[in-house]
């Protein structure tokens, strides 16, 4: 059988070089679009293989890497992994397509996006924790350079805050991975081996490892109280950077959390605390979002609400909750990428992204305004969008595990949804007074809107495409 994941990673790696080589901006961008387009096509083939080719799902592609520790370069194509790879491919392609408001000297942004895509796909597919850690850090550093070198405003400050949190998380992650390795009966980094044998690790050690992993992933998701890097990082990053950081990088944490809960046998003892933390985080973020006027910061806190809901789904520890969490990762990744693409487009068109100034976007930029409405629909879980399927599954799962309390976090979505509709009405759709546009929304941005919005509806109307992977 074709080693499809290796193929995808190799294409992405060539994409990094191809986007780095040319001297001018346009060629670099074009090459990045071509290579991330190929990656997307291959990811679609991956979904097709998963659904149709017998025996492909859960197959492992591996070559020996460091034999002394039994580390293989191993990649698994399980349903969760396939869904997240697809997400990374779609979001990265859209990120290479859109235009940012500051594009002078931003040629080197494209190799970074490709490097980030490479790390995201490698991380989601990784079959052992060592490879997981390597791709994790590559992604973190690529995102750091996106913010610090190509950001606007307080970019340096935001990038440093981001880096401090991220490296803190990486340090915890590295230490816990080493601990797991030395406490498994036959020393191993393999995720499937650890999952099967975690009950043999002493309870106390497991609890410690769990806590360290949990904090590391909380930083990345982000979950209260390790969230303070997001608002500045998202606000300062270039449009492309915000799209991939919010859309894909935050899924590193969510995916890690999913692995953690399925990997360690001790996790069922902690699930109710995780549920509580997720709920608190969602409510906290919902109320903080209401105090923001910068569209990017609103989007940042909305995404933090969703991170809390994802954690709740994972902590439910039943198939509804977990499937819902996975679907929400996909849905939210697409929605937040769309949101940031729109905000980028509006910033180019109006030179402004503060909602107290921005009025009547619909008059001069109709596409952006209605796309924003679609994004809000999807993030508040209106039927026919991908967000609806995800929310329904998560809350069924939560109610099954935590009884009637499971429904409470749903109100955080309502709170933030209320605010988002108010924003849409006031700044986007109402035409009582209108801001004057300074230029048109670029064509590239519109293309990205269409691609992302189409995916949101596709996975909302036909959830069976991806949910089918779980039943093959």
């Amino acid at each position, binding site marked *: 059988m074709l080693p499809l994941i290796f193929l995808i990673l190799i294409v992405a790696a060539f994409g990094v070089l191809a986007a780095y080589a040319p001297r001018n901006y346009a060629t670099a961008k074009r090459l990045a679009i071509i290579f991330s387009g190929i990656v997307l096509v291959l990811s679609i083939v991956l979904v097709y293989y998963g659904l149709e080719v017998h025996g492909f799902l859960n197959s492992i592609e591996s070559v020996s*890497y460091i034999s002394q*520790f039994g580390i293989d370069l191993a990649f698994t194509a399980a349903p969760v992994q396939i869904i997240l790879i697809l997400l990374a491919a779609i979001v990265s392609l859209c990120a290479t397509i859109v235009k940012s408001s500051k594009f002078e000297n931003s040629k080197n942004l494209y190799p970074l996006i490709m490097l980030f895509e490479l790390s995201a796909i490698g991380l989601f597919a990784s079959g052992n924790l060592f490879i997981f850690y*390597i791709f994790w*850090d590559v992604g973190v550093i690529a995102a750091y350079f996106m913010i610090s070198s190509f950001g606007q405003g307080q970019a340096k400050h935001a990038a440093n805050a981001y880096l401090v949190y991220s490296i803190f998380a990486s340090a915890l992650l590295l*230490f816990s991975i080493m601990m797991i390795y*030395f406490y498994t009966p036959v020393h191993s980094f393999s995720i499937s081996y650890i999952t099967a044998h975690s009950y043999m690790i002493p309870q106390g050690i497991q609890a410690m490892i769990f806590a360290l992993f949990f904090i590391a992933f909380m930083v990345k998701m982000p979950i209260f109280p390790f969230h303070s890097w997001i608002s500045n990082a998202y606000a300062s990053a270039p449009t492309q950077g915000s799209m991939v950081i919010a859309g894909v990088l935050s899924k590193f944490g969510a995916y890690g959390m999913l692995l953690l809960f399925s990997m360690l046998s001790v996790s069922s003892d902690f699930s109710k605390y995780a549920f509580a933390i997720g709920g608190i985080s969602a409510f906290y973020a919902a109320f903080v979002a209401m105090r923001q006027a910068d569209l990017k910061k609103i989007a940042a806190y909305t995404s933090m609400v969703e991170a809390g809901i994802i954690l709740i789904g994972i902590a439910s520890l039943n198939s509804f909750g977990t499937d819902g969490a996975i679907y929400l990762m996909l849905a939210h990744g697409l929605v937040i990428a769309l949101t940031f693409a729109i905000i980028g487009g509006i910033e180019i068109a109006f030179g402004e992204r503060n909602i107290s100034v921005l009025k009547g976007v619909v008059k001069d930029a109709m596409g952006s305004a209605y796309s924003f409405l679609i994004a809000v629909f999807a993030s508040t879980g209106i039927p026919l969008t991908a967000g609806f399927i995800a929310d329904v599954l998560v809350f069924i799962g939560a109610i099954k595990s935590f009884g009637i309390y499971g429904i409470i976090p749903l109100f955080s979505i309502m709170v933030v949804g209320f605010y988002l509709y108010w924003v849409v009405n006031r700044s986007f759709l109402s035409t009582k007074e209108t801001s004057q546009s300074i230029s048109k929304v670029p064509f590239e941005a519109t293309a990205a809107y269409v691609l992302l919005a189409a995916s949101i509806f596709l996975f909302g109307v036909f959830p069976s495409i991806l949910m089918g992977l779980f039943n093959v």
Partner: protein
Amino acid sequence: MVFDATYYSIPALMFALVLFGLLSLFHRNKRVAFAATSILLAGIFAASLSNMAYGSNALLFSAYSISPFSSYLLVLFSSIFLIINWFAYSSASDYFKLNFIMSVLAIGIFTVPMANSLITIIIAIELMSAPTILLIAFGGKRYAEPATKMFLLSAISVSVLAFAIALAFPYDVTLSLHAASTANPFNSGYLLMLSLGLFVVAFGTEAALFPFNFWIPDVYQGAPSHITAMIAGLNKKVAFIALIEVLFTLFAAYTGTISVILSVVAILTMFFGNLGAMTQTSVKRMFAYSSISQAGYISVGIAAANSFGIEASLFQIFAHSFMIVGAFIIIGLLEAYGLATVKDYSGLSRRNGLAAAGLTIIMLSLAGIPPLIGFVGKFLLFSSAISSGLIALAIIGILNSFISIYYYGRLISSMYGASDQRSIALTKSAYFVIGAILAVIIAFGVYPEPLIIAAKAAATSLAGFA
């Protein structure tokens, strides 16, 4: 013992190195001297590489031992020396003079990993440190201060070393490292423990271990860059090798004591280096402190005191040699354009892309970011600490890597800022050498397997571990 040309080629090449160095003093042709030295060093590199590949074991003149351990280190030292040789050639005006002294120094450096007795070690260390002082002092009057510091330090180090050997003498009358490890005739005694401690002090002074490392920042900053690169990339590593050899042959029975002493030293050294680096404004001085903290990481492997720990230390010695030499080469080349402080470096990426990118990759590697060689080294080191139960040491080590991001990140974000200064042009050969160093850092980071296997073979061949 069978006569084997590859074995004897190494002492022969070393002899030829000194001979050509001496000749170059007379005919005073820079290019010829450079070419001859490079070819001979490449010869040593090739011979050691073949010895390493075949896992050769031999004892020459009953003083030099060829083993996977010495071959591994000769490969490292000869390749680093090739780079330093190029750097000295391209930046020093009186290269033919340096060439002779460096070739003498090379003998000392190459002898330590092959040493078979304590006497060989003390002579080799002396052969290494005396020429280093001369090399610093050659720069002229303004280098008198670092040269004096280096001189005092070497004098203390060698005398302490002599005393340590004297204390160990009753327990090891042949002064042989090999015999001691196999016979293991020791009774525990406080004299012996004192000897162990003094060995740590003597080598720790050269290897930049706390609290014997206050000279490092001054000398590193004061000395000309090619000498700084040499001290950081070779002299310091040689001291570590000597320490590992002595501790795990002569004192192989006392791994518990070694573990305690080195754990404490490692923790203090890491904190001293990293906290010191945070407040520096001079880039060269910052890297001096960074190199101290790296000495702390290397000691973590020695503190683990098992075969895995030695392997990790040897790996990190290899990794750090390349990283720090690369860093000091870039810094030295930029010094000519008046770049010294973190502020001067702002906007370097606009002025010279490769220098900024190279320094960034080296710093990310020093900070332990995958997939670079420094990450693999740290991963091995902290794993070895956990494997021998030193979990606290591993946590403190990882915490220190976290701290180090702060000062590396500061320089990186400064380099990628705006600049209106004129651009900096480097020579083609500079691009080639920097490119080669970066290739090593990236290649062995992405695929560390060959180097890990070599380090493992080296660690297990060191007497004391089966």
